[in-house]
């Protein structure tokens, strides 16, 4: 017998992130925190790790504004502004279903504007993050996995994790896949 597929068809075409340049000391770097608890500590710690590796720099820091906003994607205007001001953006973190979805969509929107990106998502939400990346049209967008949970840890523990994932994040913005969980 023949039956009709109930599956939906997406009109979105997947565009690869591809291979992009390594972080240069002259690059303007953005640190995006989605305001999930601990995300500000963590992304600032990532910035500290980058400075250890490449020297001091002035970061463009942006925070979404509160936990309620962590589930929101950036507005088109906010993405445009970040893209104008940054060559590279690190974004943290996906820690729940809707905030993982939002942060992956944020970095894809930035990557589509030519910004080199890396999203941090906890391993608990890896399947969701990869699914959203496929849905949003960039299945290979750089994501580095963090141990779940991050929010319940101390600032010192988050800083330690940042030190362990910094090299992976630097590799990720170049389009290097399969980076390890911290």
């Amino acid at each position, binding site marked *: *017998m023949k039956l009709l597929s*109930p599956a*939906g068809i997406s009109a979105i075409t997947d565009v690869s992130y591809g291979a992009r340049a390594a972080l240069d000391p002259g690059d303007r770097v953005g640190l995006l925190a989605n305001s999930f608890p601990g995300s500000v500590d963590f992304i600032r710690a990532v910035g500290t790790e980058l400075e250890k590796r490449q020297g001091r720099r002035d970061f463009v820091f942006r925070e979404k504004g509160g936990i309620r906003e962590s589930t929101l994607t950036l507005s088109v205007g906010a993405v445009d502004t970040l893209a104008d001001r940054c060559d590279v953006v690190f974004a943290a973190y996906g820690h729940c279903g809707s905030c993982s979805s939002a942060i992956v969509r944020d970095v894809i929107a930035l990557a589509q504007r030519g910004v080199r990106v890396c999203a941090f998502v906890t391993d608990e939400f890896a399947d969701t993050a990869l699914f959203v990346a496929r*849905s949003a049209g960039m299945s290979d967008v750089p994501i580095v996995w963090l141990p779940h949970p991050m929010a319940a840890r101390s600032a010192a523990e988050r800083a330690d994790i940042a030190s362990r994932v910094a090299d992976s994040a630097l590799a990720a913005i170049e389009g290097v896949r399969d980076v390890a969980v911290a």
Partner: protein
Amino acid sequence: MSPSPEILEARTELDAIEQMHRAGMTDGLPVIVPTEDRVERMLLGVSLDPDVLLGVVGPLDGAATVEKVAINAVMAGCLPEHLPVVVAAIEAITTPAFDIGAVQATTHNCAPLFIVNGPARGFNGPIAHGTGALGAGHRANAAIGRAVRLVLVNIGGGRPGVGDMAQLGHPGKFAYCIAEDEDNDPWTPLHVRRGFLPESSAVTALAAEAPHSIRVRVQTDRDAQQLLRAAGMSLASIGSNNVQFGKGNVLVILNPEYAAALADPDIAEVQRAIYESAWQPTALLEEIHGDTIDLRGDRMHVVADPADILLIVAGDGGGYSAVVPTWGGGPHGSIAVTAAIREHDVCDYSGVPS
């Protein structure tokens, strides 16, 4: 019929069902196999071309065409006369303000609840509003709700652990559909309050938790006021998202006896009375939740404004009514969205093989 759907093949009906289970195309229960004949017949329930796009369903962002929705409605066990309600429900949840992609992806347990108003409650069902209306045994409620769930799975990618990250979920994720008891509603029906004409039909969608029972002895005017207090306090459960986020809509379902007992049926006063009890002190929230929520003022109400408390009448007379907390998250704060049900002279499909 447009040539867009992929054609799948199976040796027998049972093989087809198993194949669809394996492909993740079901809700875990057996489905009616969507053969071309069955889908053709289902499409007679609406006067829309099969390739009309009703909306895009996140997080997969799949295209919900009339034809794809009809295929899922067949699988759910719908009759053609149920399809206009399913179509309206899909239009409601794919309205951008509903944030369906985030509703599906959240770890919260919410599921879209559908409240049907207007004449469609009868001739597109009947869709139950009385005894056990949110339980099992009501064909239209079950089939319509299930059809939407299958659309969320197959077009929206809402499979548990991937597109649907609800950490526990609730049984409303199988089907969650009810009509309002408009005959016992002391106010105008919900859809009229939301801007539709009384003679029209509409479906209101809300990303909702399971209903929570409330029981209050209601014999006097004073008791009726206690009922509203109890509803508010029940909505403001200390662990609920609503009292932590304070935005979007919540729902109170009064049974007909409770509704009749309200001495002052002015709806704004009723909403105000519920609102005034639907809060927690900021200090207690901070004690319980620490810095994980954004606290404002000395108390957090479950919604920003009394008018954000939706009220309907449903269920049987007696001691129990219900409150329905909601997700409360997302870009639009988990607000209700109402869409019109297109009325038309349904085709006579009695001679079309089922």
